[in-house]
């Protein structure tokens, strides 16, 4: 059984710069005729966004498409929704396909909120009658009751996005394709979106989800597919695919050219457990040691290392700073290569994926010698409390820090 099925789908975006001029058109025509006469394949400029991609999504499943920027995730969704056609292969979908490619894309500035609900909703494929029934629900979700009869151009950006998401997510399609839309709005609204998505999923909607925000992927999806440069790398359970995605990112990071303008660079970075064994997976409240090997371009006096742990959001969950701790690297003059080890006795983190971020400052804390870079990645797996069931309240508030705690009830 499947709800969505890609069968050897390729998508080639032709470069159409020659379309801009008539002269170019003729040159192109000549090339075409020439190729026809010589019976050779014409080599066309362009990009292959999807390269022979095949996969299936089961009905009612929530499926994530992962991959670095430009890997073809969005193209896959565009082909699924019929916005564009595959160059080769075919896409099959059983049921009505709804999509949210960009919250607020079709919200028209000149129209009022009310007009937008009806017109945008019906352009998306909702029937007028069901729009009328759901009108209050849509407006309520978007939190725009007071301004619903004002032109949308007088709305704040957040209000516009909320309205767009609200209309699209009330489509109730059989298959729902969502692209990065949860990254918009403030935390409060993201939470609402995730709750809404959960509701759709439990209601039996098949969801295809594109996001770089791994906590959301983890929280919402069962299965996933990893794309890189238009090719399908792996597919399967979301944990495994996320793991491969992280490894892919790490691989790419290692291959990236190093910023030569910085006097310090990281040679290696790894996480170890209490026995000194290098590991990628940790249990909550386990001990962890982060080992970083540095190389300096010229002797530096008393560099200050700052290590942060992030769960994918812009702000670190935990930050350990030599500046704050007033720590010094012991030797008076640093050799060209040196190692730094940070031991965290008890990792106060909930299960999810974390990035080790690192920066190095000079002794005064003013000049930055090494930028904030993601140097390593690890996951925390298992339960935060041994007796717990691992249930998570569906508040969508993804707080990553887990402190040792106990409850008391006084009556």
């Amino acid at each position, binding site marked *: 059984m499947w709800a969505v099925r890609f069968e050897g789908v390729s998508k080639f975006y032709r470069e159409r710069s020659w379309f801009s001029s008539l002269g170019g058109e003729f040159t192109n025509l000549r090339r075409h005729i020439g190729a026809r006469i010589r019976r050779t394949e014409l080599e066309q400029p362009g990009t292959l966004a999807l390269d022979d991609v095949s996969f299936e999504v089961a009905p009612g499943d929530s499926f994530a498409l992962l991959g670095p920027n430009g890997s073809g995730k969005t193209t896959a969704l565009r082909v699924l929704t019929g916005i564009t*056609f*595959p160059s080769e292969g075919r896409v099959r979908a059983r049921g009505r396909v709804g999509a949210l490619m960009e919250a607020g894309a*079709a919200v028209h500035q000149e129209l009022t909120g009310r007009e937008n609900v009806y017109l945008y909703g019906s352009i998306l494929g909702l029937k007028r009658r069901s729009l009328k029934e759901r009108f209050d629900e849509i407006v309520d979700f978007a939190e725009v009751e007071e301004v619903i009869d004002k032109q949308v151009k007088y709305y704040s950006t957040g209000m516009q996005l909320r309205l767009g998401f609200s209309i699209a997510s009330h489509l109730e399609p059989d298959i729902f394709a969502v692209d990065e839309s949860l990254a918009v709005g403030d935390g409060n609204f993201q939470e609402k979106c995730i709750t809404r998505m959960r509701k759709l999923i439990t209601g039996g909607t098949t969801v295809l989800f594109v996001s770089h925000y791994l906590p959301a992927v983890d929280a919402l999806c069962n299965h996933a597919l990893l794309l890189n440069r238009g090719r399908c790398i792996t597919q399967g359970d979301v944990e495994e695919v996320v793991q491969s995605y992280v490894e892919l990112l790490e691989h790419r990071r290692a291959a990236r050219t190093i910023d030569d303008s910085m006097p310090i660079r990281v040679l290696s970075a790894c996480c170890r457990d209490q026995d000194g064994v290098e590991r990628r997976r940790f249990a909550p409240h386990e001990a962890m040691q982060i080992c970083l090997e540095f190389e300096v371009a010229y002797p530096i006096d008393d560099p200050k290392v700052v290590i942060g742990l992030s769960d994918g959001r812009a702000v670190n969950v935990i930050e350990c700073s030599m500046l704050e701790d007033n720590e010094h690297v012991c030797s008076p003059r640093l050799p060209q290569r040196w190692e730094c080890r940070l031991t965290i006795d008890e990792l106060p983190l909930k299960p999810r994926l974390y990035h080790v971020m690192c920066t190095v400052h000079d002794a005064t804390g003013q000049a930055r010698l090494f930028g904030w870079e993601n140097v390593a990645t690890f996951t925390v797996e298992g339960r935060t409390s041994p007796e717990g069931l691992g249930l998570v309240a569906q508040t969508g508030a993804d707080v990553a820090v887990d402190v040792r705690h106990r409850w008391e009830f006084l009556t």
Partner: protein
Amino acid sequence: MTDSAVEYEIVHQSARRVSLRASLHELAASRECLWSFGERYLRLRYKQAALGVGWAILKPLALFVPFLVFFGGAAGISGGGTTYAAFSLSALVPWQYVAAAVELGSNALVVDGNLMRKIYFPREAPVIGGALSNLPDLAIGVVIVLVVAPLTGAQFGPSLVFLPLLAVLISLPALAVILPLSALAVYYRDVKYGIPLFIQLWLFLSPVAYPITALPPRLRWVMALLNPVSGPLEGFRRVLALGTMPDWGLLGISAASASVGLVFGYWAFKRLERAFADVV
């Protein structure tokens, strides 16, 4: 999972053949989307205009004056059985509908290009919806013609019941032109600049400033065939200025020729449609 999920399956594939039947079927299924696009253009048309719907009244009258002065007065073209004022206004109003529909419909896909890149909907919906969103303006124009009849000396009678039919028949050639033009406009912005010229040229080739009866009878049906707005325009004139029945022969020829054009236009649109989101 609802039952509707099992009912049908959507397939997107690389095949190049165009099935007009499947396309029309889809268009019929999403007619609400088409009306919504129409309503959208209609609501947007006079937003933030001080005169608002007043423009729908002003537009035919504004062209009417120079027509009256130059063609009726200076050039001395006869009204073909009625006053020149009644004669020109009765055809100007439907012509302005055609002109506005072509202008708006042909640019619809470019104007809503961003929408096309983000959302799926039948691509002809904004084009047809945009074109037909001018129908209320046509209705207002017709009312004006009837209201000013005592001034212009226009006569009308029971043949007014054929006005809706004439509105449909004059929409056919307009859509036949709009569909391929709108598709072409996605690829070439030149279309946008060419359209005003094209409309002007078309005006001179249509019996608006002159009566079709200026041609010898043998050539009239040739004109109705080659320029299928002629039949309906002449029909509007007879109904709104002379108060007689439309010329069914000319109307039939125009309708047949416009229908053939419309099928070709729609087919061309569907051929070009596949790469819309990639190039717009």
